[in-house]
């Protein structure tokens, strides 16, 4: 166990907690999503640092999964089919 990497990981976790303020506040949905994207990247960095601190490959695999799948949420936000506005009588004025 390496205290230097552990401390750095704790520091980055703290940055994530502070960055959460943007998720609370952000007026636009994109603001919240970009804060989430920063969480994702910081999470990958934390995992890599912890992998170096504990010398465990399983942590690196988890980091790989995080990095690979971080795209999905944003792509779903942009590309998921929205509710049709011209459908029927249910549309609100």
């Amino acid at each position, binding site marked *: 166990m390496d205290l230097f990497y552990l401390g750095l990981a704790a520091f980055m976790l703290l940055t994530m907690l502070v960055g959460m303020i943007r998720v609370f506040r952000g007026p636009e949905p994109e603001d919240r999503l970009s804060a989430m994207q920063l969480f994702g990247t910081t999470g990958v960095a934390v995992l890599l640092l912890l992998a170096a601190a504990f010398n465990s490959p399983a942590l690196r695999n988890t980091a790989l999964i995080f990095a690979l799948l971080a795209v999905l949420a944003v792509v779903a936000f942009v590309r998921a089919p929205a509710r049709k506005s011209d*459908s*029927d*009588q*249910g*549309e609100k004025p």
Partner: protein
Amino acid sequence: MNTFLLYSLAAVVLICLGVHGLIFRRHLLRKVMALNIISGGIFLLLISTAYRNGTEAADPIPQAMVLTGIVVTVSATAFALALIRRIHQDNPDADDDGDFGDRE
């Protein structure tokens, strides 16, 4: 073992927050998220009991159970969301807070 106590008490708080949200929030999507938080709390309770001995030997049985639990949670979430979508399709004039009136 202090870590065990810390995490299992956090799990208790999570479960209670989830139950509270499940009862008090009215939007159906929020209820689904509350259910997911409850299951997260239960998993945390199980995993922290598996960790009681500390680092040398975590009990594998609760971990296998939680792995199955995650499968069940995802399936249930997907089913609930499909049902919510169907409810909205059939009641297009329902309120957003999930208060689906029986319109005549």
